[in-house]
């Protein structure tokens, strides 16, 4: 036979189907957008220019982190045997969750990169509670973030409160969320599409499997990231951030205001300390609330969570992260102001 075949497998010949030419329409739409962008000069409209620049910058910053996360995820899928995670999953939860949070120390990427890794870990057999604990802790406790927080607060009295407080409260919040998720199984936690969106490809060569998982994760995460970045850019374009200034001196409201701002701005955890440090009208406790809450719950993460996890997961994360962050930073407020 002239054509290449695999083994001698015989399958029924498929009935001829009309060729789907949707891709032609998609290509045409992209060309039309490019032409419109060149001809209509949308940059001359101030708000649209602002929106497009912020949207582009969020994506250009976050996409490489998602790519690193997808790379790690594909390596785990192809090269780490599932039995490794099964052993970890058999440990008591009181051991698993702190260990998962501490594992974040070895994963220096921001929050966008930790989502695909956690998804992969849960699919490979790690308990979902531990995977989520890792996902939430890694963007806060990794060495790059600790270093950037140190640099941002260097020379201030609150330096060690900020560096130590962020690490400890971040770990605490992540473990609490993991605890609340408890013994849920991957099928209960991950969205239907996230569980069954990959073909059984174990017959394929390892390289092909690796790239299937790498590109699959990239495409899966990118679509939600784009939605989240667009919402964040729109809010940044139309909502003045000065609205939070009015509550800077109020005990509980200042914490909530900074958490809300962190949610809206959707900053990267590796640099958000520099922004938090600039809010000199807010005390260390409110700045800590910003630094702990933002890497766990923000607009772009909300879109990623909704795409990855089942209905109700986002609500659980928002409620637990808000409650624990609020209580912990209130305690800091009482002690440090």
């Amino acid at each position: 036979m002239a054509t290449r075949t695999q083994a001698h497998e015989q399958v029924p010949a498929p009935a001829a189907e009309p060729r789907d030419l949707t891709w032609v329409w998609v290509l045409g739409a992209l060309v039309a957008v490019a032409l419109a962008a060149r001809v209509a000069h949308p940059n001359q409209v101030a708000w649209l220019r602002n929106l497009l620049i912020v949207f582009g910058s969020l994506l250009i910053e976050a996409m490489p982190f998602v790519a690193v996360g997808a790379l790690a995820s594909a390596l785990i899928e192809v090269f780490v045997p599932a039995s490794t995670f099964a052993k970890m999953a058999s440990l008591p939860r009181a051991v698993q969750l702190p260990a998962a949070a501490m594992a974040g120390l070895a994963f220096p990427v921001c929050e966008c990169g930790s989502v695909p890794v956690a998804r992969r870990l849960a699919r490979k057999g790690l308990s979902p509670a531990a995977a989520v604990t890792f996902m939430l802790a890694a963007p806060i406790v990794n060495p790059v973030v600790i270093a950037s927080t140190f640099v941002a607060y260097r020379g201030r009295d609150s330096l060690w409160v900020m560096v130590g407080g962020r690490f400890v409260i971040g770990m605490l919040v992540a473990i609490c969320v993991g605890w609340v998720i408890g013994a849920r199984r991957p099928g209960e936690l991950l969205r239907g599409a996230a569980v069954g969106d990959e073909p059984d490809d174990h017959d394929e060569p390892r390289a092909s499997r690796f790239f299937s998982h790498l590109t699959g994760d990239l495409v899966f995460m990118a679509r939600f990231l784009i939605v989240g970045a667009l919402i964040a850019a729109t809010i940044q374009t139309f909502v003045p951030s000065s609205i939070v200034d009015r509550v800077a001196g109020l005990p509980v409201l200042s914490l909530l205001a900074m958490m809300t701002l962190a949610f809206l701005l959707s900053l990267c955890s590796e640099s958000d300390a520099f922004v938090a440090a600039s809010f000199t009208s807010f005390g260390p406790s409110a700045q800590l609330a910003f630094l702990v809450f933002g890497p766990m719950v923000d607009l772009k993460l909300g879109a990623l969570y909704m795409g990855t996890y089942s209905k109700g997961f986002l609500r659980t994360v928002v409620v637990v992260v808000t409650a624990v962050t609020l209580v912990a930073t209130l305690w800091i407020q009482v002690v440090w102001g």
Partner: protein
Amino acid sequence: MSLVARRVRWSSGRLATATALGAWAALFWTLLLTGRTYLYLSSRTAWLVPVGAVIFSAGALGRLLTARSAGDEPLDRRSAWMLGAITLPVVLVLALPPATLGTYSVSKRSTFGGSAIGATARDVTGPLDFVDVGAAQSFPSAMRQLEGRAGESITLDGFVTKEASEPNEILLTRYIVTCCVADATVAQVRIVGLEPSQYADDEWVSVTGLVYPFQRDVFVQAEPDSVTQIPVPDQPYLTP
């Protein structure tokens, strides 16, 4: 029903995925090679662009080399539109002319600009620049140092912002970016001694004058001939 051998053939789904990832790789390479990185990121995070370029290139190339599949993996309608949506930001960034944040954004970022800006604590002891101004507006210790240097000459590059409430002065503005443009904060000085009507909003100028901090504001006394029009700098945003 006839039986045929299963053929290894090009998968349209895999080819389309490789194309979408290739588009993202092209974006990162373009940013890297044209210097447009700094329209979106700070010098602190510019390293992300080569990382993105390499990983997306590897992903696209790897997907292309493994695009032949024994199974049937057609590109269905939903996947085609989804890949189009993923490619859309690339098309927008590459098709639009280079642009920077301007006067419109100042009011939206006034939290930082009004009382504090995104500068880290630093000593205002070297040659004065915009980041020193921002640090002084953020930190009392830096402001005290700047006050000690009142009357010194300073040269600042920035764009013009005018306030209706202050008809006799212009604001010279510069954004300070720590990570990406989404976290841009504002540093501003008030330029006195010029005729505001001669300058337009968003016009980039270089101003040399004498610096005078007062309370939380920083004023620069300038002469009209000390102001020159300049093009938008290669790095329009400053990094503290």
